[in-house]
C-alpha cells in the first residue's frame, strides 16, 4: 500500500516536473538514479568522481539538464524518505514546493539566458560558465595576493578573496540555496543571515564606533564641513552611472556612488539593500580604493594646493571634556532621528559603539565590540561578500564601469574636500591647512595619515594628523547621511 502511494507520488513528481521541462527527460532520471545508486562499479565510481572534478567542470560546466536532473534526484530522494516514514502529507508538500518556488528558479535561469540571447546582448567580458568560474578563482587569488603582499585592506580583502574562490568552485555549491531535503551551502547562510538582514555591516559599524575618537571633531566643529564636501564624489559617481546609457538602474547607480563614501560597512549595507547583484564588485572596489588612498590622493593634493598652503601649521586643538564626548553620540543620533530616520540604522549603531566607549561604564561590552565581535563578523562578512562574486555578476562590463566610477568618486571627493578647505582657509580667522580637506572622504584613518604625510613633506614641523581626524570622522557621518538619503529616495 505504502509502496503504491510512493510510486504515485513519484509519478506525480515526475510528470508535474515534466510538464514544465522536457518530456523525454522526465521518465528516465529516476531509473537512471536508482540504477546508478544500486550498482556503483569501480569504473563508474571513478567516472562519477571524474565528472565532478573541478578541472572537468571548468570546460564542461553543468548544463541546464544536469541541474534539473540533480534537482529532480534530490526531490525524489526526499519524497521517498517522507513516504517511507509515513509522511504522506509531507511528501505532498515537498512536491508542491518543488514545483512551485524552486522549479520557478530553474525556469528563471532558462528565461534569463533566453532573454539575454534574444536581446542580442552579450556582455563583452562574458566567458562560458566553467571558464568564468575559473577566471573568478583567479580573481579571488589576486585579491588574496593584494591583501597579503601589498597590504590592501587585508582584514576584508583576504576573506572576500577566499569567499570568491569557494563560491566559484564547480559542483561544490558552497553558496547555493537549499535543495529539497538538503541544506544550502554554508556561505548561503552567511549571506542571508548576515548581509541580507543588514546585521553584519551594522555590527561592524558598532565596532568602528567603539574604536573612533570624535574628540578632534568636537575640538574643531567646523571641519565637519569638509566631511560634507567630500561626499560630492558619491553623487558625481551616481550621475556618471546614470549617464552610462542604461547600463545601470537608478538603484545600481546609488549603490555604486556610495563607493565614494570610502566606508566599507556603509557601502555593503546600502548595496545589499539597493543592488545585491553588484554587491561583490562594489565592496571590492570600495576596499581596494580605500587601500589605494595613499597612492590616489597625494597627486591631487599637490595639484590643487600651493606649497605654502601645504605648510600651514594649524592652531593646537582645545581639550574636549569627557562629558562632551559622552553627549556627542546621543546628539548625532537625535539629530539623525529628527531629520533623516532612514539613516538611523547606520548612524545609530555607529553611535551606540561610540557611546559604549566614551561612557566608560560598559568597558567590557566596548572591548568585545572592538575585538571578538568585530573580528568574528569581519570573517563572516568577508566570506559572505565574496560569495557574491559569481562570474556572471563580476566578469562583465558593469564591473569595469563600477571600477571607473569608484575611482572617479574618490578623486572628486578628495578634490571637493580640498577645495572647500582652501575656501575655508581664506574665509576663516584661524588658518586651515587645505590638506585636511582630503581626509573628508573618510577611509579612516588612512586619509588622515596621508594628509599628515603630505603636510610633513612641505613643512617638517607640520603635524596635521589630529587636525585631519576631524574631517575624517565627519566623513563617516557624512557618507552614512548620504546613504540615508539614497535609501529614502531610491530604496
Amino acid at each position, binding site marked *: 500500500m505504502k509502496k503504491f502511494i510512493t510510486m504515485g507520488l513519484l509519478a506525480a513528481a515526475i510528470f508535474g516536473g515534466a510538464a514544465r521541462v522536457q518530456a523525454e527527460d522526465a521518465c528516465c532520471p529516476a531509473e537512471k538514479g536508482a540504477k546508478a545508486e544500486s550498482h556503483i562499479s569501480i569504473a563508474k565510481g571513478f567516472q562519477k568522481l571524474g565528472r565532478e572534478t573541478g578541472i572537468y567542470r571548468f570546460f564542461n560546466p553543468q548544463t541546464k539538464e544536469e541541474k534539473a536532473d540533480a534537482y529532480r534526484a534530490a526531490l525524489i530522494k526526499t519524497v521517498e524518505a517522507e513516504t517511507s516514514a509515513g509522511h504522506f502529507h509531507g511528501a505532498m508538500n515537498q512536491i508542491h514546493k518543488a514545483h512551485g518556488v524552486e522549479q520557478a528558479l530553474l525556469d528563471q535561469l532558462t528565461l534569463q539566458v533566453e532573454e539575454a540571447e534574444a536581446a542580442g546582448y552579450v556582455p563583452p567580458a562574458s566567458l562560458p560558465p566553467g571558464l568564468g568560474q575559473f577566471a573568478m578563482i583567479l580573481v579571488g587569488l589576486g585579491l588574496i595576493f593584494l591583501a597579503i603582499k601589498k597590504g590592501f585592506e587585508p582584514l576584508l580583502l583576504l576573506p572576500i578573496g577566499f569567499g570568491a574562490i569557494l563560491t566559484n568552485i564547480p559542483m561544490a555549491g558552497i553558496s547555493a540555496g537549499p535543495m529539497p531535503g538538503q541544506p544550502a551551502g554554508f556561505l548561503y547562510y552567511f549571506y542571508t543571515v548576515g548581509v541580507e538582514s543588514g546585521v553584519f555591516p551594522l555590527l561592524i559599524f558598532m565596532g568602528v564606533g567603539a574604536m573612533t575618537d570624535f574628540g578632534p*571633531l*568636537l575640538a574643531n*566643529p*567646523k571641519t*565637519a*564641513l569638509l*566631511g*560634507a*564636501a567630500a*561626499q*560630492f564624489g*558619491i*553623487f*558625481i559617481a*551616481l*550621475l556618471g*552611472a*546614470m*549617464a552610462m546609457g*542604461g547600463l545601470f538602474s*537608478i538603484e545600481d*547607480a*546609488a549603490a555604486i556612488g556610495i563607493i565614494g563614501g570610502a566606508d566599507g560597512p556603509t557601502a555593503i549595507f546600502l548595496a545589499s539593500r539597493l543592488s545585491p547583484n553588484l554587491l561583490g564588485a562594489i565592496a571590492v572596489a570600495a576596499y581596494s580604493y580605500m587601500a589605494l588612498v595613499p597612492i590616489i590622493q597625494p597627486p591631487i593634493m599637490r595639484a590643487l594646493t600651493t606649497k605654502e598652503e601645504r605648510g600651514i601649521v594649524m592652531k593646537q586643538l582645545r581639550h574636549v*571634556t*569627557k*562629558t*562632551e564626548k*559622552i*553627549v*556627542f553620540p546621543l*546628539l*548625532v543620533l537625535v*539629530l*539623525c532621528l529628527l*531629520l*533623516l530616520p532612514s539613516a538611523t540604522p547606520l548612524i545609530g549603531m555607529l553611535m551606540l559603539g561610540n557611546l559604549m566607549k566614551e*561612557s*566608560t*561604564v560598559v*568597558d567590557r561590552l566596548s572591548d568585545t565590540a572592538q575585538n571578538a565581535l568585530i573580528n568574528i563578523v569581519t570573517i563572516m562578512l568577508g566570506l559572505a561578500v565574496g560569495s557574491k562574486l559569481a562570474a556572471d555578476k563580476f566578469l562583465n562590463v558593469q564591473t569595469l564601469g563600477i571600477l571607473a566610477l569608484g575611482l572617479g568618486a574618490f578623486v572628486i571627493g578628495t578634490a571637493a574636500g580640498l577645495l572647500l578647505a582652501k575656501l575655508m582657509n581664506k574665509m576663516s580667522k584661524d588658518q586651515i591647512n587645505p590638506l585636511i580637506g582630503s581626509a573628508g572622504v573618510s577611509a579612516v584613518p588612512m586619509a588622515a595619515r596621508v594628509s599628515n604625510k603630505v603636510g610633513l613633506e612641505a613643512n617638517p614641523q607640520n603635524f596635521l594628523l589630529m587636525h585631519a581626524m576631524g574631517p575624517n570622522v*565627519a566623513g563617516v*557621518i*557624512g557618507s552614512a*547621511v*548620504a546613504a540615508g*538619503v*539614497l535609501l529614502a*529616495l*531610491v530604496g
Partner: protein
Amino acid sequence: MELLMQGATLMVIGMATVFAFLVLLIVAMNSSAGFFKKFAHLFPEEAPAAKKAPAAADPSAEIAVALAAIRAKRG
C-alpha cells in the same frame, strides 16, 4: 536624458541634505561646547570614571578586604 535629470536631482537633494545635516551638527557641537563650558562646575571631569567603580560587578576587591580582615582577626 531623463535618467541624467534624476541623477542630478538626487545630487542636489543629497548634497543639500548632507551639508544641512553637518551644519546642524556643527551648531549642535558648538552649543554643546558652550553649555558644558558654562556649566563646567556641574560636570567634574572625572565624575563618570568615579561612578564606574561601584557599578563594576567585581566583588573580588571587597572579598579580599573581608578575607584579610578575617585572617587578621584569626591570626
